[in-house]
């Protein structure tokens, strides 16, 4: 895998993401791992299905990496997101950020996951025991108020 930001239907190797940001200037590598949760507000998930507009999603993940580089000095970011059928506790997303100092690494990886939920074309379909639903955005909206991301969602800062 020569990409730094990628969509895959295979199990994500966390160490592969980490190795892509490992370097001599880094004093910290923060990893965020998003996994499939069984219970949401008491409702039991049987499994999840993720779909992506893969080519655009990889570009948008790379854009998030650029945004991070412009917000925090001297960062390297790698993000992998899995698609297809995922079982409970499977890894859906891995974010690795390396920085000279730890605080920036924590902040930048938090930023990355929030941005994924705003601009990266990946969708999650819940499969419950008694039905299915394509999930809307993190604010639990099932539609956008406008047909564009909000201005602040589109900007780098």
């Amino acid at each position, binding site marked *: 895998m020569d990409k730094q930001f990628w969509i895959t239907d295979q199990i994500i190797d966390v160490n592969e993401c980490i190795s892509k940001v490992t370097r001599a200037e880094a004093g910290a590598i923060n990893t965020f791992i998003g996994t499939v949760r069984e219970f949401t507000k008491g409702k039991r998930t049987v499994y999840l299905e993720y779909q992506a507009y893969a080519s655009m999603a990889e570009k948008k993940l790379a854009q998030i990496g650029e945004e991070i580089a412009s917000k925090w000095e001297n960062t390297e970011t790698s993000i992998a997101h899995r698609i297809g059928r995922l079982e409970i506790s499977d890894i859906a997303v891995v974010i690795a950020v390396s920085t000279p100092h730890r605080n920036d690494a924590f902040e930048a990886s938090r930023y990355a996951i929030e941005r994924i939920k705003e601009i990266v*074309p*990946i*969708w999650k379909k819940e499969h419950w025991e008694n039905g299915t639903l394509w999930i809307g955005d993190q604010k639990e909206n099932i*539609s956008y108020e406008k*047909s564009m991301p909000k201005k602040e969602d589109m900007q780098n800062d």
Partner: protein
Amino acid sequence: MIDVLFFAELQEAVGKGKITIEADGITVKSLKTNFLSDYNLENIDHAMTAVNEEYAEEETIIKSGDTVAFIPPVSGG
């Protein structure tokens, strides 16, 4: 020819992920109202639109050869 891509619930509503239409120089809005009105896509106005993999406005002009994607609220992570 314009390729139009659908994802998530929109893909299920159309019954496939991609359709191709004969058109050139139309707006995103016109694509929705004139070309996609036969499909049961009541949520299409709640989706974002991407032209050639970049988010686009309703007034953006789509040319032959472009790829348009309708992007419902995303839920990755």
